[in-house]
């Protein structure tokens, strides 16, 4: 169980995390989402006692993490897979971590096997790919068999096989009753991994709910219509108060309609003797819900995204 209450971090006059409150429960995978620079890493660092908050509190398992003299049996965390010494072997790196926490040395080989690095155990970490370093970081997080696991962008640099494996691992860890908290700036990643979401933008909480609830929040619910008479239908629907835009490539005669339900669109088409080839309810993808909700809080807006994004 992770509890964050009114957590705030300011660097000078810049507020990285702004009165953030949320709870992460055991037995589920909780995704921590936000655009780059939203304050995800800063929040995780405060949770792990690396950074002191300007205000507010955070606890893991009911106590501030920093009060533990040794951490690995309480929380396993992977913040940045590059944060290792390239000159050491995987075994030495994990061996030192285990020794300091009084974890038996035999556990090192176990976690290395678990993440599929047994072959590379004696090799210097400097020669590892980013995907292998991610696996090593996950191995370090698993060393203490902790009830709470936190991963910052764990899928970065992993090959498709690795992504599949890591998703399965997160699901299994959650099924074992552990609290699994992972951050990402990619919504699509969470769609297939997380049960719950904590979404932040510019350091503030935007949503804390289940993945399904979050997707349903999008106002961009629309109906896809395919018709050979798109000009006529467009006029009829616009007159009825809907907004219409072309969907897909220009030659495909499909339009996306928002503001009218599918049955009303069908009825209007029938009244005006317009032939329809397709009438589909389209729920917004998680990605769209995310883009829409965070549009007002994107830190570094690129030119293209700026055009597509919502007005502030």
């Amino acid at each position, binding site marked *: *169980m992770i509890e964050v209450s009114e957590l705030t971090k300011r660097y000078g006059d810049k507020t990285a995390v702004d009165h953030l409150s949320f709870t992460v429960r*055991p037995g589920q995978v909780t995704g921590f989402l936000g655009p780059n620079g939203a304050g995800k890493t800063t929040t995780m*660092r405060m949770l*792990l*006692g*690396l*950074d*002191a908050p300007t205000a507010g509190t955070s606890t893991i*398992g*009911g106590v501030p*993490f*920093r*009060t*533990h*003299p*040794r*951490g*690995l*049996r*309480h*929380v396993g*965390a992977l*913040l*940045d897979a*590059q*944060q*290792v*010494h*390239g*000159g*050491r*072997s995987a075994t*030495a*790196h994990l*061996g*030192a*971590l285990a*020794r*300091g*926490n*009084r974890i038996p040395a035999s556990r090192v080989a176990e976690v290395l096997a678990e993440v599929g690095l047994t072959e590379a155990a004696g090799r210097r970490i400097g020669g590892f790919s980013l995907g292998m370093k991610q696996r090593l*970081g996950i191995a*370090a997080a698993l060393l203490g068999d*902790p*009830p709470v696991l936190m991963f910052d962008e764990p899928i970065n640099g992993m090959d498709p096989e690795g992504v599949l494996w890591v998703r399965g691992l997160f699901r299994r860890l959650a099924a074992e*009753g*552990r*609290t699994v908290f992972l951050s990402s700036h990619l919504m699509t990643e969470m769609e297939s991994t997380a049960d719950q979401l904590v979404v932040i933008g510019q350091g503030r909480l935007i949503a804390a709910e289940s993945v399904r609830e979050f997707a349903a929040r999008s106002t961009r619910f629309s109906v896809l219509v395919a018709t050979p008479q798109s000009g006529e239908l467009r006029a009829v629907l616009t007159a009825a108060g809907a907004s219409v835009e072309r969907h897909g490539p220009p030659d495909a005669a499909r339009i996306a309609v928002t503001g009218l339900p599918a049955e009303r669109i069908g009825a209007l088409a029938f009244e005006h003797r317009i032939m329809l080839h397709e009438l589909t309810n389209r729920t917004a993808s998680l990605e769209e819900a995310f883009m829409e909700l965070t549009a007002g809080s994107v830190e570094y807006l690129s030119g293209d995204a700026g055009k597509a994004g919502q007005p502030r």
Partner: protein
Amino acid sequence: MTSTTTTTTATAVDEPPARFLDLVAAEWIKVRSLRSTPWVIVLVTLVVTGVAAARALADYNNFPSYSALTRRDHPFSLGDAFPAEAYLTVMLAAVAVGAIATVSEYGSGLIRTTTVAVPARGAVVLAKAVVQAVLWTVVGSLVALCSFFVAQAILSGRDAAISLGDPNALRAFAASALLAPVCALVGLGLGVLIRHSATTVVAGSFVLLLLPVFFSSRKPLSVTFANAMVRNAWQRLAQIYGTPPEAYNGATVAGSWTVYVLWPLVALALALLVVRRRDV
């Protein structure tokens, strides 16, 4: 058997009590697992022994041309065993390796992994200090033994050798052996304070090797500062300039040992103070 059981199993952790020695063992694994460690030790031992041998050989060769008094007292014997240029090299190596013990973790970001594994930050710094102190005391003693016995073995050919039991020889040996851990701990403390590798090594080399040159031996305040330098303390303890006390410019044996204790103590105290407060 109540409904709270589920929440407690999720949070309560079966954990053995934390022991400081585990951290020392962990830090020792880190030092041991870097290939640079044995290389530095071998290199330092070779340089120091080589310089001592060269100095002793020079006196061996020049011996017939020395005055009768010099030949009888052979005051060069101790200086040949602990030559300044050799021990400046020891200082440089020790301060650099001590600095790297902390700075390398900041540079790579490993410090965050370390701090999540061991939230007791001060204990980690102390464990690193213990490892560096022990490692460099062993290396320093080894180096001092080598340089002493190689020099004396050569000088014994002129019947000008001294034994470790001779007046001042044991003190010079101890001061030379302990010079390395003193410098390593200063480097380690600076590393925590500065957190940037090149800057730390330059700063450490500056305060230990270069700063002593800045003070004149004439103005009283300047002399006080000069006597508070690690390099000058070592010279007072390890070398014999002459019998009259004014030759030492007010530096005392007790004062010099105090300098040996205070430098690492202050560096470590500052490091411990800062490491608890600062964001990692």
